[in-house]
């Protein structure tokens, strides 16, 4: 692929992001604009924005790479990332909006009335945010390196700078617009090349990548295409553990939760989530197509360990000449839209927590938010440059395991179970957080040979999530005197439709 087109594509996406971000500056004047777009975003725009924010490097590049290398079991990543929204819709969407909380720590404090629990939640938000930002920067480095041969850090720095400028300029209001735009850009960027590539494939005789004679990366096609046939010693356990992590982890992601406060009410929050389900379903049909066609047209990427770049390289390889170059430039643009949108969302979420809980003691709110945004970006950028590369989708999958083991039980029990106490929540967060973070760290370092230990640590959610739930429930039952006195009023706030005039106590945040 020629560097010129790719660089042009990246430059266009970056400029479009900045222009939309700065256009939003005219509107974003108050602190509320910065944080929650003054809660005035309609379901359709908001759903596009949520989709744009959610579809990260892992969805855009990582899924295709994993499918290319490992086959059918990897389809569970996109399925799980979509199902996570259904679980979120059913269990927490409307209630989270009605709580009036802006961040997960806001919710924890409002529900259980404990400053200490708030602090622990804040630490977890920052940890999850940073872990999630890391693969975004690594993906950016990988992409820019693929196109121009630049060193891995260059792409990460480019994304970090663009994100910082747009977040510093406009806050949440402009980001909503930017991200809605980026969802449609990402969808177009994957969809248009697929049409041309399928034509080429049919012209070549339409050989199924699942046939036995197609060998790529040392695996024959029929083994690659069969479910539960590869990747780990206990594929059924690993698959179910991945299902637990992705189905339950989505609701615990800080940048996802922040979005719900931009809905005008609980009903709109539900409708937005339903629209997101549709947008995700449409998008996730596409990446596996790249992975499967990659078996036929780019099998060398597996051996060279660059499976994650298949989305970027495949159009130019399958379609010769200028057309292929332009289509590859299009997928490159989509990839950068993915890095930018997810990184912006995470940066806003982490910066929101850092500014509220740390920096705002010394600075005016908007200045505090800006200082925090810089902190939120610089630290994971440093980590990304220092850490060894793990497959993008896999490392994001591990972050889901941490979110599912911590904030998922806190939210589900906090919303549906009156007897939850601050001590119980704290114990659950500590147990779930410690176990999942330890397992994830071990997976990044990767010291174990194949076997049960490697599988249990490589996909920890199947045991860390039940452990966190049980700890929260058990310790809460042991500390019944700590049930907050305002729990009944708070349940009214969470569950009743806004149309009914009721005393709902104070909102978690004004």
């Amino acid at each position: 692929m020629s560097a010129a087109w790719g660089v042009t594509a990246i430059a266009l996406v970056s400029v479009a992001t900045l222009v939309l971000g700065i256009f939003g500056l005219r509107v974003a004047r108050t602190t509320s604009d910065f944080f929650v777009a003054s809660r005035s975003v309609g379901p359709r725009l908001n759903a596009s924005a949520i989709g744009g924010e959610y579809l990260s490097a892992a969805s855009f590049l990582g899924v295709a790479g994993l499918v290319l290398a490992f086959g059918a079991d990897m389809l569970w990543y996109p399925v799980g990332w979509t199902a996570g929204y259904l679980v979120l819709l059913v269990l927490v969407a409307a209630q989270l909006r009605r709580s009036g909380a802006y961040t997960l720590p806001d919710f924890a404090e409002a529900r259980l009335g404990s400053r200490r629990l708030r602090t622990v939640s804040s630490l977890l938000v920052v940890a999850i945010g940073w872990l999630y930002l890391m693969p975004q920067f690594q993906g950016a480095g990988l992409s820019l390196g693929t196109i121009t041969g630049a060193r891995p850090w260059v792409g990460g720095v480019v994304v970090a700078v663009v994100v910082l400028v747009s977040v510093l300029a406009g806050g949440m209001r402009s980001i909503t617009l930017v991200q809605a735009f980026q969802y449609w850009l990402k969808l177009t960027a994957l969809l248009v090349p697929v049409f041309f590539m399928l034509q080429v494939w049919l012209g070549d005789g339409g050989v199924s990548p699942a046939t036995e004679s197609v060998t790529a990366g040392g695996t024959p096609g029929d083994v690659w295409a069969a479910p539960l046939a590869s990747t780990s010693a206990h594929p059924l356990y690993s698959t179910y553990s991945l299902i637990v992590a992705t189905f339950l982890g989505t609701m615990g992601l800080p940048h996802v939760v922040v979005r719900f406060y931009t809905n005008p009410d609980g009903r709109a929050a539900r409708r937005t989530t339903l629209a997101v389900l549709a947008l995700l379903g449409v998008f996730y049909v596409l990446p596996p197509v790249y992975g499967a066609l990659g078996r036929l047209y780019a099998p060398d990427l597996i051996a060279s360990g660059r499976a994650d770049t298949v989305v970027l390289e495949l159009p130019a390889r399958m379609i010769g000449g200028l057309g292929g170059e332009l289509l590859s430039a299009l997928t490159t643009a989509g990839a950068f839209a993915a890095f930018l949108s997810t990184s912006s969302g995470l940066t806003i979420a982490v910066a929101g927590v850092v500014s509220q809980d740390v920096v705002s003691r010394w600075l005016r709110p908007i200045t505090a938010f800006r200082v925090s945004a810089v902190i939120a970006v610089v630290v994971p950028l440093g980590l990304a440059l220092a850490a060894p590369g793990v497959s993008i989708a896999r490392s994001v999958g591990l972050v889901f395991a941490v979110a599912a083991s911590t904030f998922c039980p806190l939210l589900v029990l906090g919303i549906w179970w009156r007897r939850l106490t601050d001590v119980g929540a704290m114990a659950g967060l500590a147990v779930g957080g410690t176990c999942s973070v330890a397992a994830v760290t071990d997976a990044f370092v990767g010291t174990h040979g194949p076997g049960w230990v490697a599988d249990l640590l490589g996909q920890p959610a199947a045991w860390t999530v039940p452990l966190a739930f049980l700890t929260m429930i058990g310790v809460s039952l042991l500390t019944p005197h700590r049930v907050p006195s305002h729990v009944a009023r708070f349940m009214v706030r969470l569950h009743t439709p806004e149309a009914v005039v009721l005393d709902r106590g104070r909102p978690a945040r004004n």
Partner: protein
Amino acid sequence: MTDPVPDRVRVTSPRQVGTRLARTGASEIDAQTQLGELYMSSLLRSQGRLAVTVLVALVVLVGGLPLLFTWAPSLADVELLGMPLPWVLLGFAVYPVMFGLGWFYVRASERTERDFTDVVER
């Protein structure tokens, strides 16, 4: 000890009963009376039951697929539209199913909330 003389009691027509009957479910909830708690717990129960129904459907329809593939490995040899059946299911079919579940949930939960509103505002 002598019994204390009972206070004189004024007997009037029970005019307050009228205002008491005019109390709405909303004010019962605000006052956290037993009736108000009943309204709340019935709202939570029906919303909770709805959530569990949708989640069970999700677990069976989507979460059951790995077990299905384990019990019937020959499914991988079945081809639909030129693709192995597991790919058709995981790559395409699950998405409309999940959207359908979400659509059902949104409609049903809005209906529950409308009923709740009607009852407590009466």
